[in-house]
């Protein structure tokens, strides 16, 4: 059975560079749009890369600021200074 790693984010301008970075960095991501929110699902693993988000924002970004636009998640979290990953692998 498939195991989807998932992040749900606000659907607003603050979250858009993060959503775009996720779409670019995670091939095969499934997008579910709901009013006010976007749910992104990917088989096994989903990664948010700081550098990729910063490129789209045009300024430096602290990865922990993702807390301001994150609605929900699925998978085990692994976070450091450069990336924020949810996955089901060990």
């Amino acid at each position: 059975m498939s195991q989807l790693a998932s992040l749900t984010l606000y659907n607003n301008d603050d979250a858009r560079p993060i959503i775009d970075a996720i779409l670019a960095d995670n091939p095969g991501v499934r997008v579910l749009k709901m009013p006010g929110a976007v749910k992104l699902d990917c088989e096994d693993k989903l990664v948010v890369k700081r550098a990729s988000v910063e490129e789209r924002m045009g300024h430096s970004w602290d990865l922990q600021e993702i807390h301001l636009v994150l609605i929900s998640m699925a998978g085990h979290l692994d976070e450091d200074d450069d990336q924020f990953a949810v996955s089901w692998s060990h």
Partner: protein
Amino acid sequence: MTVKKLGLKQRYAHMTRGLDWETTYQPMDKVFPYDTFEGIKIKDWAAWEDPFRLTMDAYWKFQAEKERKLYAVLDAFALNNGQTNISDGRYANVVKLFLTGISPEEYQAHRGFAFAGRHLRGVGPRVAAQQQSLDELRHIQTQIHTISHYNKYFDGIGEFPHMHDRVWYLSVPKSFFDDARTAGPFEFMIAIGFAFEYVLTNLLFVPFMSGAAYNGDMSTVTFGFSAQSDESRHMTLGIEVIKFLLEQHPDNLPIVQKWVDKWFWRGHRVLGLVAMMMDYMLPKKVMSWKEAWEIYFTEAGGALFQDLARYGLKVPKYADIATAEAEHISHQNWAIFYQYTHAAAFHTWMPDKEHLDWLSEKYPTTFDKYYRPRWEMWAQMEKECKRFYNMALPMLCNTCQIPMGYTEPGDPTTICFRETQFRGETYHFCSDGCKDIFDGEPEKFAQSWLPVHQIFQGNCGGATVPDVLNWYRMNVGADNMDYVGSPDEKLWNEWQAGKVKAAS
């Protein structure tokens, strides 16, 4: 020599570890008296992982930013009379049910996590539980602030804390949290942290809050998503709790499995209220309860339990029954509230044709067969001035406290009854799930405060319905009964007429 900057993981380790100490004036077991009696064995508290690595200073910074954003929206909503721009006056009833039924549980969660944060002896879970305790306090405060604006215009809201402790259907969520808070700290963490936060709250806060957005309620969607942004931290705490307990000692597995089974089923019963809100009370719909269940339980819960299988943990008992009930639960709950509208502090209605067609489409194998004919009959009876009210007090399930209106697994035409004997008394249940929970802790559940029993025992203001409603502080004729004919409807229609006039 250049000093290398510490990475996030090292910084976090330095900021959060070594903050605790072995007590010397008193033995540790006296300082932490509650973390052994449940039978959970912990060998090494230091093995606790905090995946979010959020230190207290960063926590305050982010929470302050969330609050600034939220209160700017609440201010704008009030200044712009946002209440006149919701999709329909009926929508206000979901806000009423939320504030009376769910917000007080945020406060109970605040108290529960404060207790767990004090009484677990490992520093990792204590920091996480204390942050969650503060989050939950923030949630009820923001919910009261948001909904107080609706209270200026709509009925059924003003007495919410009083009603929460007394009104029959509010005993369903209340007893759920009372049960969790009177358990030991580990059971509380599995009950609320894991079973509720990780497995079930997405169903409440994601599709339902998205529904608030879709229905023009920008204040509720904002507090909902603001609360939910804390929720990803809570979910992570929940999954860490279960991994930690299962990794610490093999003897923990059967205890944790029993709690997972119990709290999954209890949570499923409480969320039946949300099922009804999504399928019946949102005038503009985002997805059906069944669709939400498929995404958030079948798919997300499936991935989770597949992962936890490596510890020997199984999918919660009766998960298959709960999934089958996703076809029925919203309809059966709405039927209960429709029949008892005179005793509920929000309004009910029969769905119109467009709404019935949507339900037929979303529930193709069950709605037309079992529910649509009943709704059409009740709508016809309304037209003939014979609106159906059920004046008998219902028998309640001794565990979930919901009236016994649910049907047998596999047979939606037969009401499900289960019973058990304890100390010479007979106790009644709506399902095998609720019966098993009682049988596991009969001494606890034999003490349940069941609203209907309390009325019959003379503890609820008197023997008649008006006496009881008075004891609930129900404003009869305004808070209760159908939406059609209510003061809410009258006000809403005046606003709409005002808009038409202004436009012409």
